[in-house]
């Protein structure tokens, strides 16, 4: 056995990484910065018509105009998306966990889940409007449905991938079925699950936009359609940027929460094991 302890090795890697940090940041900022500069140049000089692509100053102006409407719209969209996402995530994960634990739950929900999974949720919007009318209910239901199906399926498949030798080891060490579930199944699927939750969170903003396009009377998506009717491209771009920021903030929040749960995995570092292998300059 080698005498180099892995602890030392990690230390070296960490040092190498932090030593490289400033250069990496500069490199990472380069492309976005270039895009912003290019955008400012072609729009401020009116090389591209404001109707197609508004300039940064158009956006600032538009923000001033829309300020009164933006805040309530923002509050409405964030409320919808978060409640739909939370409801769907809770439902989906619970369903997945239940199906993994009991054959009865698997028989009850497994078939229906497999049936619903390939249906594009967006295709259900007209039906939802018909069933639930226009308003909050269809919007939240749509987001919750989209989120829960994705998470139900991924939870179940994550559980199917739990290593049998870990389960056997736990059983021979005196674990009951519930103990195995609590101490082996749930912790070992957690990193995978958190990854899927991030994907579902990102998707739920998309579902919110779609729902508001087609039948809401409030929210950022509704405001966007409204701006489209006035040919206010600056307003539309502004709202797109707000949606991006919201999605980014939610993603960051989930990643923050992910940290302690995935400390034990190889991929707990930002780059992951594969990037670490392939990323050598």
């Amino acid at each position: 056995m080698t005498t180099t302890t892995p602890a030392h090795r990690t230390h070296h890697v960490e040092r190498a990484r932090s030593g490289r940090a400033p250069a990496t940041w500069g490199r990472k900022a380069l492309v976005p910065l270039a895009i912003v500069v290019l955008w400012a140049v072609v729009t401020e000089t009116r090389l591209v018509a404001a109707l197609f692509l508004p300039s940064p100053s158009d956006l600032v102006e538009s923000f001033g105009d829309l300020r009164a409407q933006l805040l309530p719209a923002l509050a409405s969209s964030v409320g919808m998306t978060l409640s739909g996402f939370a409801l769907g995530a809770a439902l989906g994960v619970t369903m997945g966990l239940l199906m993994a634990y009991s054959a009865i739950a698997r028989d009850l929900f497994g078939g229906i889940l497999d049936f619903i999974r390939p249906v594009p949720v967006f295709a259900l919007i007209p039906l939802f409007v018909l069933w639930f009318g226009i308003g909050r209910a269809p919007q939240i239901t749509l987001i919750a449905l989209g989120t829960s199906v994705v998470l139900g399926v991924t939870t179940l498949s994550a559980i199917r991938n739990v290593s049998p030798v870990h389960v056997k080891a736990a059983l021979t060490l005196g674990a009951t079925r519930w103990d195995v579930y609590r101490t082996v199944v749930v912790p070992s699927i957690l990193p995978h699950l958190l990854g899927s939750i991030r994907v579902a969170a990102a998707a739920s903003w998309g579902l919110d936009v779609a729902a508001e396009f087609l039948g809401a009377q409030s929210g950022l998506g509704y405001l966007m359609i409204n701006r489209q009717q006035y040919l206010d491209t600056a307003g539309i771009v502004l709202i797109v940027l707000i949606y991006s920021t919201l999605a980014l903030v939610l993603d960051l929040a989930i990643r923050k929460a992910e940290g302690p749960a995935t400390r034990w995995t190889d991929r707990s570092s930002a780059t992951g094991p594969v990037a670490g292998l392939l990323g050598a300059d």
Partner: protein
Amino acid sequence: MPHRASPHPTHERDSPAALELDSVAVEIAGSQILHDISLSVRTGEVVSVVGPSGCGKTTLLNVVAGLVPVSAGTATVDSAPITGPGPDRTVVFQEDAVFSWMTVAQNVAYALALRRTPADEQRRTVTDLLELVGLGGRGAAWPKELSGGMRKRVDLARAFAARPKVLLMDEPYAALDQMTKQRLQQEFRNVVLSRTTTSMFVTHDLEEAIYVADRIVVMSASPGRIAAVHDVPFGRDRSPGIRTSAAFQDLRRTLMAAFEEAEAA
């Protein structure tokens, strides 16, 4: 097959049988995997099981672990029939079975935590066992920071911490390099001798079988059955030097012949 008394003082000649297999047969999906296995392992005895691949040695270990039910015959530990897995028969598997989401200390304490052993007693046991397997002070480490050999040590400490009546070793060191393997075999001996422990050690490595065991069972295949039983002529303490001794090499040759015969059968 009636067991032969070992002429060596590694354990009392008349100490009671900890593990008793009587005419055990296992049939899986219509094919006979084990046929008429009778074996009794005395308290404190280490028995290794060798044989060609497919001879059912791992199935035999799984019967004792309670992971495979018997189709006929009886299997008992301290006279109680084996009905399922339990912490009186812990296993070190060939695959890496360390829980990577727990620290080394949490892994070793696993069986104790399930039993709600008091925290300070858990801590004492963990410290002692990690010291014993050469991982002293590494309790807070994550398994991902350990080498393959170190993870096997965690596995052994975890299985031993449960205070099993029979410790089951299922080709635990098959994937390791020779040097690491020899060191771990020595540590296995140390662990087993630190407290009276009965053990069944399945391996396909004859040298390993001789080094770790008091008695060796040679199995043959289709269906899996006991072909021969040999006593190991070494006492409790085994310096690495015995590996090159004449007695060791003689036994190795005998086993090799038995092994080949079993394979041909």
